[in-house]
């Protein structure tokens, strides 16, 4: 958690077509995965260059998920059956004509590669290609973890059959079928013998390994949870007990702890603090901690904040507006709403507090003009402050997106 891991090429389990090399590469390079696939498909017939590259990357990268998965609270609710399975249907990418064409190109590339590397009569190439496809199916199966048992068996059987078919074709082509039958028979007998002797032991070894792995994952999760509880909840409870005679402080601490725990349990992990949503949530959290007024944050869409850009100025102005509301408004709650549309970023900060008369702005309220309105206008955005005594205040900020 403390150290930032350097980005590492990983093959994701989701969004893959073959082994996830293209998907992982696209994730790493931040380019569309389709483009990567097209490049590989086009490279494939070039003496098999695409195939070799793909195989090399496959062999040297591990399976991983850049997708951090569900937050712990949601995962726990799913495990305990407190959520419907797959709350909203997720569409998977089915095979498209483009994809099939790419696979066909890859296949042709593979055949050409073999043709070039192995100096055999043309008859040997196709059987070898069949063998390769079969092997690929089996290997692919070996590393995926999410299929049903029937699908696993079907795929392994299909892959093995392909391999066997390829070998038979190969040997028939060379007239060595008799040798093959003898050899196969011998192999089958030996395997049966080994199976009878070592079968139960192998099975138990496998089960132990699975149990051990599950136990390790569980204990890691337990350690994570207790570490988190210790760092946050326990500390807060201790402080709350010490300040039990100050209701404001207790409420503030409880709210801050609630926000922290809620974010940890249910929210997406904060990916990038340089984005609008994260920056606004941070500003809201600061105001909650400082003034004790809860801030209801609702953000639709997100956008990257360019240093010195107008969106950054809008976030800073929103922070000022929140601070003003927390400091002066004496409101029960502050509402923060931000929306990123195609054209613009808009942020609204609203409270139902004491308000003030805009025509009667005293000297100490000059800060509003300087820190909110002028700051945003300097960067080409617009800001308006509406307020009335006893009604509350609303600050509206807008930045057109082409100049973010």
């Amino acid at each position, binding site marked *: 958690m403390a150290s930032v891991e350097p980005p590492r090429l990983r093959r994701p389990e989701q969004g893959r077509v073959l082994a996830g090399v293209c*998907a992982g590469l696209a994730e790493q390079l931040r380019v569309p995965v389709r483009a990567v696939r097209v490049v590989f498909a086009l490279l494939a017939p070039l003496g098999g260059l695409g195939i070799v590259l793909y195989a090399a990357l496959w062999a040297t990268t591990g399976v991983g998920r850049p997708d951090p998965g569900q937050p712990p609270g949601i995962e726990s609710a799913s495990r305990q059956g407190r*959520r419907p399975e797959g*709350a*909203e249907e997720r569409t998977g990418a089915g095979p498209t004509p483009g994809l099939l064409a790419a696979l066909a190109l890859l296949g042709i590339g593979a055949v050409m590669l073999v043709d070039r590397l192995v100096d055999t009569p043309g008859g040997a190439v196709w059987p070898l290609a069949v063998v390769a496809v079969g092997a690929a199916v089996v290997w692919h199966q070996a590393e995926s973890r999410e299929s049903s048992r029937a699908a696993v068996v079907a795929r392994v059987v299909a892959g093995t059959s392909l391999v066997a078919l390829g070998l038979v074709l190969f040997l028939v082509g060379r007239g060595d079928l008799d040798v093959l039958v003898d050899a196969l028979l011998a192999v089958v007998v030996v395997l049966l013998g080994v199976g009878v002797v070592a079968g139960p032991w192998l099975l138990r070894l496998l089960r132990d390994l699975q149990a051990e792995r599950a136990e390790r994952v569980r204990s890691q999760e337990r350690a994570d949870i207790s570490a988190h509880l210790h760092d946050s909840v326990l500390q807060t409870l201790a402080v709350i007990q010490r300040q039990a005679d100050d209701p404001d402080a207790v409420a503030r601490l409880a709210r801050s702890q609630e926000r922290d725990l809620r974010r940890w349990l249910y*929210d997406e992990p904060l990916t990038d603090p340089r984005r609008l949503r994260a920056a606004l949530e941070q500003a809201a959290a600061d105001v909650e901690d400082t003034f004790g007024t809860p801030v209801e944050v609702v953000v639709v869409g997100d956008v990257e904040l360019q240093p010195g850009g107008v969106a950054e100025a809008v976030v800073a102005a929103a922070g000022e507006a929140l601070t003003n509301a927390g400091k002066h408004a004496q409101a029960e*709650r502050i509402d923060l709403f931000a*929306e990123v549309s195609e054209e613009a970023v808009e942020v609204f900060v609203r409270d139902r507090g004491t308000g003030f008369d805009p025509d009667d702005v005293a000297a100490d309220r000059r800060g509003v003009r300087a820190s909110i309105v002028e700051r945003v206008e300097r960067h080409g955005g617009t800001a308006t402050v509406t307020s009335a005594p006893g009604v509350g205040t609303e600050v509206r900020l807008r930045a057109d997106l082409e100049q973010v």
Partner: protein
Amino acid sequence: MSTGTSATSRPARTSVVVVDDHAVFRSGVRAELAGAVDVVGEAADVAEAVAVVRARRPDVVLLDVHLPGGGGVEVLRQVHATEPEIRFLALSVSDAADDVVGVIRGGARGYVTKTVTGPELVEAITRVAVGDAVFSPRLAGFVLDAFAGEPAAMETSGDPGLDQLSPREREVLRLIARGYTYREAARELVLSVKTIETHVSNVLRKLQLSNRRELARWAAARRLV
């Protein structure tokens, strides 16, 4: 609103069943609602909830989104199969967009977070009891998010109007997301409160009937392609 103490047999107050698997929360809600509505039953999981709701037939069911036995959606499905007239108000700490939108699509008439204050909760219950929709700022944000993007390019159901919000509905939702009450939104748009309620109910209907498979932009954004 209050009919006084007429002390006759039938209570005129809204009857409520509280469904939540945390006993502490149930008793907290009971205490907060005491005097404003009648809590006529409690349940801690899906099976119990379906049984209690069928037996007591309350005006409103306060329904936790996360519930042992398949979640709040499952309660909605089973109860609405036989008693479609019973109204549900969803309640959750999770704030996970998928779950909240799922419960609304399952037939709940509104959604509030568990941090809602007592008076706000009573108002929401009263609103749901008479058939109105209750949108918290957060739910309004989720719905705006769900209907974002260019609707024309999306695959549409038979009725394309279901797959997008009208500009007016969008305006109303944005005001709610900004923290406006229905009354304040009505004043801002120079409309009647009744019109605002109609817009919000229409949004709810679209959310429930829309066939947009891309209803969750957050799900789409997570995908690689």
